């Protein structure tokens, strides 16, 4: 007993350390079964996030009052500049809408399924983890607001991360940033179309992994989401390649600068709903019955070069060579999509002869 009394402090220390190491080992062994620690995490969030919410509310209100009522210097000039910008963007929009129409027609041809962000929720970043080893932030929207684990979190500049946990009370969620070492995002390079995995490092940098060392990746190339991770829809801006070096093994060491400023996050968008839909034939603007009919009817073939070889050879050649069909290319594409059959070469390769009457024909 005397020995126990003498070494009481040490025994308690060893006991407390042993209990924590045991708990740690259980969590590492069964990372998916986080129910025992979930309660502690909810309590911790409940203790800290209300203070953060109050502070962020005071900060935002003060800033709004200042910017909306007092600090209005240069507002007229800014207004003028924004109007000019709107005019420029309107012109650009016309051009882009034409491009989008064309893209939709091609997607319909390929039965391509697109992912659309159909619903987002604005949220305010209220706090972080307080650890350099754990790059997570807390937002002021939780389970009751419709936030669920594995939802994508983005800003207007680029992607931010994904929701790890969402709590009912307090209404808050934990978001894992893309520069955390446990994070992984499927990405694709904009021009070279190389795919890889974006990961964070221990120092908070972002690297692109799994790009073979024999590939050429220029610095400055844009990095977009590939949609392969099932979290982020395809085509969202991730960042830009800053440095390319030879890495270990067979892969390149590519550093990426995230487009969103992950160190100064204030407002983010949680993607609460992603639609996956196919480009509709009517969106192609040319799925007319008359076009379908025109596609199926025999056209007037150009005279085959090897006509002397017989009828069979001639018909085979007529499939391989361009035919003169009075049908605009868009109509042909729409016809192929509507017929739900693979487009015959005759439809894919046509000489464009505009026929407005066919375009305006009723179904």
């Amino acid at each position, binding site marked *: 007993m005397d020995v126990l009394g003498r070494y009481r402090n040490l025994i308690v*220390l060893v006991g407390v350390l042993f209990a924590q190491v045991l708990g740690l080992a259980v969590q590492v062994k069964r990372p998916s079964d986080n129910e025992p620690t979930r309660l502690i995490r909810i309590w911790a969030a409940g203790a800290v996030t209300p203070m953060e919410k109050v502070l962020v509310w005071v900060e935002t209100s003060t800033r709004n009052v200042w910017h909306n009522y007092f600090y209005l210097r240069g507002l007229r000039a800014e207004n003028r500049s924004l109007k000019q910008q709107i005019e420029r963007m309107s012109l650009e929009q016309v051009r882009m809408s034409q491009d989008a129409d064309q893209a939709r027609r091609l997607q319909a041809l390929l039965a391509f399924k697109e992912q659309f962000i159909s619903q987002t929720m604005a949220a305010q970043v209220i706090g972080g*983890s307080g650890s350099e080893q754990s790059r997570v932030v807390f937002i002021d929207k939780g389970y009751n607001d419709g936030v669920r684990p594995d939802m994508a979190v983005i800003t207007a500049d680029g992607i931010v991360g994904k929701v790890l946990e969402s709590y009912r009370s307090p209404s808050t969620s934990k978001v894992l940033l893309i520069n955390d070492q446990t994070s992984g995002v499927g990405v694709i390079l904009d021009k070279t179309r190389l795919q890889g995995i974006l990961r964070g490092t221990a120092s908070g940098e972002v690297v692109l992994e799994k790009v073979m060392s024999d590939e050429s990746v220029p610095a400055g190339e844009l990095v977009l989401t590939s949609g392969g991770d099932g979290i982020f829809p395809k085509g969202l801006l991730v960042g830009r390649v800053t440095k390319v070096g030879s890495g270990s093994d067979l892969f390149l060491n590519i550093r990426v600068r995230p487009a969103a400023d992950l160190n100064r996050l204030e407002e983010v968008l949680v993607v609460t709903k992603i639609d996956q839909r196919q480009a509709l034939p009517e969106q192609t603007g040319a799925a007319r019955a008359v076009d379908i009919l025109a596609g199926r009817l025999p056209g007037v073939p150009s005279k085959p070069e090897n006509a002397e070889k017989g009828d069979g050879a001639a018909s085979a050649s007529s499939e391989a060579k361009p035919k003169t069909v009075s049908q605009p290319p868009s109509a042909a594409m729409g016809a192929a999509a509507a017929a739900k059959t693979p487009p015959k070469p005759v439809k894919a390769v046509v000489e464009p002869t505009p026929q407005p009457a066919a375009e305006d024909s009723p179904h």
Partner: protein
Amino acid sequence: MAITYTSGAQVEVYRFSIPATVLIPLTAVFLQAWLPLRFHLFSFFDLPLLVTIGFATARRSPLAGLSTGALIGILQDALTHHPIGLYGISKTVVGFGASSLGIKLDVENAGARFLLTIFFYVVHEVVYFMIARGLVGLRVAWNWPHEFLSGMANALLGVFIFLLLDHVKQRT
């Protein structure tokens, strides 16, 4: 006034009121979670660690020191996405060590506090590094200059925090 005697030296033992015992660590964890978002450089500091050292050296009770360290560490762990216990174990060790050393040494002057904080900052980082690498399998980088500079920065801040804690501690 209760005085403890260790190796012939007179050492004063302090205590903290219940509101201070609860609110000060909570505020430290809250500020640690909030300030780096506004001032990124603040991520160099570890306010909960400084509070752990401050409480432990003032109370001079190893049991109180290790339990304070364990609770603050677990609270800090709960805000991360890593398993709970990484900061818990590190701060338990620091709380125990700081309070044990507080019995032997005079930690009332700024110089001693400065050196003590650097020492325990490094101890904390070493323990964290070992557990993170060995038990959890995290890729944690170790950089001596960075750790030493962070230790200096924390020690400087620690001196001021200990001065603030001096105002709320009460003699037993």
